[in-house]
């Protein structure tokens, strides 16, 4: 579903953000992407989302190759990938419903479907009562949940999440993880970037990819494969 082959990303003049990173996330697989701040987690997610292109190597996601997909075609990939941004990236001045519905509107979905799916997703993330509030008036945690609802409303094949629980308390974090686990159970692939090692430890059943200064230094999937 996601395959990185010797991916290097440089941001001149700042330097190298990723160095020859390779991993393969299969269909329906759930992996945590861990590492300190600046280790390359967000860069990896952006490369998968094709918001950036690798300096060398290849990224493949949902059948799209970074070498073959033009900027004009990238929307096709993005409709299959839900992205929960660290900084939320919601549309200011619009309600929670409008923000979530927007991800469906761009696909040309029928209005009735848009409303029903939007309400269902907002209910799932526990925001039914705040659905008509402008996102600017919501707390950080609530905005985080709007961002998650928006990423999931399209029934994506892959979910990329950048510190999705970073602004949430324990209870809300558990709620989000339950939601991710439901998605995983339904066959959705998830790549969740987090520096919260406690969260990772609570879910030993999921694969862990650890980055350090742009290098993939640990892959529990590879360890298991090696052991097998």
């Amino acid at each position, binding site marked *: 579903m996601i395959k990185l082959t010797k991916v290097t990303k440089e941001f001149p003049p700042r330097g190298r953000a990723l160095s020859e990173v390779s991993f393969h996330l299969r269909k329906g697989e759930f992996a945590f992407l861990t590492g300190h701040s600046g280790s390359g987690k967000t860069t990896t997610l952006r490369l998968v989302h094709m918001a950036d292109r690798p300096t060398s190597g290849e990224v493949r996601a949902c059948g799209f190759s970074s070498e073959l997909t033009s900027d*004009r075609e990238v*929307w096709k990939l*993005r409709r299959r990938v839900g992205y929960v*941004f660290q900084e939320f990236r919601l549309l200011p001045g619009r309600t929670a419903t409008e923000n979530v519905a*927007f*991800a469906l509107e761009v696909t040309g979905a029928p209005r009735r479907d848009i409303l029903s799916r939007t309400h269902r997703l907002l209910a799932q993330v526990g925001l039914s009562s705040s659905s008509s509030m402008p996102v600017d008036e919501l707390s950080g945690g609530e905005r985080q949940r709007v961002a998650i609802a*928006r990423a999931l409303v399209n029934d994506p094949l892959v979910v990329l999440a950048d510190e999705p629980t970073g602004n949430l308390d324990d209870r809300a974090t558990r709620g989000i993880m339950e939601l991710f686990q439901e998605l995983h159970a339904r066959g959705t692939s998830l790549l969740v970037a987090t520096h919260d090692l406690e969260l990772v430890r609570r879910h030993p059943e999921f694969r862990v990819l650890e980055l350090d200064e742009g290098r993939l230094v640990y892959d529990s999937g590879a360890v298991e494969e090696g052991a097998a």
Partner: protein
Amino acid sequence: MYALREAIAAIRRAPLLTILSAAMVALALFVVGVFGVVTYNLHQALTQIEERVEVVAYVRDDVLEDQVRELEGVLLELEEVRAVRFVSREDALLTARETLGEFEDLFSGLQVNPLPASLEVELQPGFRNPEAVARVAGLARRHPNVEDVAYGGDWVDRLHLLRQVGAIGTAILGMAFSLVAALIIATAVRIAIFARRDEIQVMRLVGATNGFIRRPFLLEGFLTGIAGGLLAAGLTYSAYLVVYRLVFPLDWIPMEWIAGGVIAGGAFGLLASAVAVRRYLREV
């Protein structure tokens, strides 16, 4: 439908920004509008002067009425000629007495009318230039029943030169004003879009096609341009009324000019939006 809904929603969300953009567009087009009124009135004044350009063919004294009719027919067949008017010797004397009142004593002492009969040849609007006037005058002069021809050659030359200088001047100034207006409109629209660049990026990140993102912005730019154009038309008309009532009477510009200005405002707004959105579409 989505594009229209979004464009209207965007205007509602940030009415002040929209008003400021439309006001900038309006002020830019107002300058063009005032220039239009001045140009139109200069054009009208020159046209009125040009209408006086005519060729006068003086008929020989011994020519009979039938021969005058034949000469009139010959002149009317020329493509440059719009109308021919016969002025008899008596009419010529009467006109001279009316227009030259200070020489009344001289006229009343005349035993014989010294003025010749003539044919006043009015030219078609496109043929009031030195070449056409000279050709008609030459053809008339060569006719055996014509004694002499007058057409004020120097005056026609000067008028034609004035017309050409005016046309070139207004074209250059018009282009300069339009360019400045276009740049101001582009800036106004770009400022409005700059304020929403994050929105464009978010749209792209959730899988919107470039066309889908672009359409509401283009429509918004177009509507802002149209609103600015209409506002400019109102401002120009107000300025026209002030001058008309307090300074001197002027002609108001034709409706097609106003429609052209408003549509140009919309077109500039649309084009500026397209350029500005394109820039932000490249960023993610």
